[in-house]
């Protein structure tokens, strides 16, 4: 057994990404157990705090996706409980989880991001949806990408190629949250770049290129094996690959992230555009971070064990 002691993988939660999180958590727990780590899974429910206080783990690996897992809530509670955990501290989670905020921070750090607007639902009600949407369409130009300002797994997100489809996309988006981020949909190669920091500074993993067979990287394309073609490393030029790696590390630093993250980018005409950063990247069989680790010659279990050890040594 590892000298790390008992660790907990947090998975589940009550966001729509619960199922994905359970799969991520199970895979991580198995990877840790395979290399001798004493790892268990726990859900973020009423049993969690009694379990932690009764038998405090050496460290916790939050693998809860979506709200509570990525918006800093769980991290805040773990800090209150004085339990070391892997990943970004609460403030950084809050910045990263809020896509418009993350874009603004990324821009301040010198990264390009697709042109966008962020608006709450009330503004459409108060000013008239038609007028606001018309202006958005003219200013950003089609195609657009509409997504909830907070959330993941493309839930509530849609690509809009025709102006008449925009209202429906807004209704779908607002079912997941009260604020919408509407971006110009950049053409180009979609890549995900994992970043890990095992003590010697953040390091980018090989970029993973994502090519959904349907053309849309929606929920089905993300979580159904066979629906998306992944290229690891991404088929980028040397300069593009370096720019993508650099952008991911820049975003990781600028957002104040820690241990690991995944940044989603579009590479277009040699230029790299920041889309969003994730503090609890998916670890399912169709998730890109484990693919990138494998391409880098690292194992998921070993890296995550080292991150847990690092967190345990760091304390809270």
């Amino acid at each position, binding site marked *: 057994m590892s000298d790390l002691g008992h660790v907990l993988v947090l998975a589940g939660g009550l966001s*729509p990404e619960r199922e994905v999180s359970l799969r991520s958590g199970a895979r991580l727990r198995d990877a840790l157990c395979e290399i001798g780590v004493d790892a268990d899974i726990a859900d973020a429910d009423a049993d969690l705090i009694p379990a932690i206080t009764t038998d405090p783990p050496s460290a916790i690996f939050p693998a809860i996706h979506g709200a509570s897992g990525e918006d800093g809530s769980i991290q805040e509670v773990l800090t209150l409980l004085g339990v070391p955990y892997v990943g970004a501290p609460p403030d950084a989670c809050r910045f990263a989880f809020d896509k418009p905020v993350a874009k603004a921070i990324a821009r301040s750090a010198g990264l390009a991001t697709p042109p966008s607007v962020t608006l709450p639902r009330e503004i459409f009600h108060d000013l008239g949806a038609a007028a606001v949407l018309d202006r958005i369409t003219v200013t950003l130009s089609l195609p657009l990408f509409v997504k909830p300002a907070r959330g993941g797994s493309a839930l509530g997100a849609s690509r809009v190629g025709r102006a008449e489809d925009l209202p429906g996309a807004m209704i779908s988006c607002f*079912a997941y949250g009260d604020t919408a981020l509407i971006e110009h949909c950049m053409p180009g190669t979609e890549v995900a770049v994992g970043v890990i920091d095992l003590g010697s500074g953040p390091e980018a993993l090989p970029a993973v290129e994502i090519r959904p067979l349907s*053309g849309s990287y929606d929920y089905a394309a993300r979580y159904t094996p066979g*629906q998306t073609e992944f290229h690891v*490393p991404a*088929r980028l030029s040397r300069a593009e690959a370096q720019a993508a790696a650099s952008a991911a590390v820049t975003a990781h630093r600028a957002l104040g992230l820690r241990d690991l993250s995944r940044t989603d980018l579009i590479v277009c005409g040699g230029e790299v555009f920041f889309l969003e950063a994730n503090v609890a990247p998916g670890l399912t069989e169709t998730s890109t971070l484990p693919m990138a680790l494998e391409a880098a010659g690292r194992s998921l279990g070993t890296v995550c064990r080292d991150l847990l050890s690092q967190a345990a040594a760091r304390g809270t």
Partner: protein
Amino acid sequence: MLTEPARLGHADHNGRAAPTPAETGDAAHPASHGSLVDAHAGRYAARAAGMVASEIRALFAVAARPEIVSLAGGMPYITALPLDAVGEMAGQLVAQRGPVALQYGSAQGDPALREGICEVMELEGIHAHPDEVVVTVGSQQALDLISRIFVDPGDVILAEGPSYVGALGTFTSYQARVVHVPMDDDGLIPAALEECIARLASQRQRVKFLYTVPSFHNPAGVTLSAERRAEVLRICQRADLLIVEDNPYGLLGFDGEPQRALYADDPHSVVYLGSFSKTIAPGLRVGWAVAPPGIRDKLVLAAEAAVLCHSSLAQLMIGEYLANQPWREQVKVFRELYRERRDTMVEALSAVMPEGCRWTRPAGGFYVWLQLPPGLDAKLMLPRAISSRVAYVPGTGFYADGTGADYLRLSYCFPEPARIREGVRRLAEVVGAEAEICATFGAMSRAGGGPAGASPADLTGPAGGFTQP
């Protein structure tokens, strides 16, 4: 671990014409090969194409948590069973009849159980011989077997609109084309059935059977009236059309005696499907089919090919339960319990639902079918409901043609009355908030429709109609 990647070369699935840097020699890395993660991706049958992860399933994974008031699932309230007595019975069964209970059996099913089934069906006017009965793994397997022996790809199956989602899934997995026949408060509309049969005949469409849930319909909650039963039988006889009568809720009526089954009046052209899932326990997975001899023989052979035989233990448990437990009284207990929950749900809906909602008042079974105010889409609204900690089933799942977006199914069978009231209260708030969003965007969205599957057809709603009580 990742599966062995499928090697795809550089096939461009997104229609991008430009060569990749790898192909132009400017790559950072040697040319990488794409992986679809699933090494068998190219081998699946065409009918597996629709078997993909979905947002709705993701949301239902949350709905199963106790924090959510789930008005979605149709789970019987098993806690009301005399579990101690059932447990004791199961123990004795294994101890005393283990060599039979744990052995293979026949594909047609245990003879003693089939006698018991005939006794149960007498309550609905069916006088069948045990030889006419085929035991199945829940009535769901009967649907599969019937599809297996009757449906060629492209064949038409008529079904009520809406129809049971599990049947639609089975029919479409056999590549049937389901054509819906509208319903109203008295069930399937005979004139619409007649018109539909004539239309399909004029189009030379091959209709294999009418699938119907005549009593306490899932999801619509309505029951085919006695007059209409006779009429539907007449229409199908005239058209030489087989009827598949799915009747899992028949004994769970809240008023008076059970309705007479269609099969009781025409055993030559009706296949009757029954189930113990709602009257005893779904975990035992025991249902049955009663069919004319030719069909019965094929069902037995199809069952043999599918499962060899059914669980002997589960069959003997049901047989023992019917023989030695007061099952008629237990059904009464369920009826009273579900009646109270139906009353609770309908009263709560009347008290809090926003204007513009309509719903059925079921006289039995598990479900209320609710129509949202114009413009609302139950599937698009579901994430908001889950965030508000209440769940339901969106209506589109009960139609094979993409309609039903403005409907949702509520079940009252499992939650305690206080939870039902709380769930309906939360739902009312969700509908109110969604109506506000639709008032903002809805009128504009008619032309397009949402990206989550709401095509223009989704917004038109099904034909037929139900009235608010």
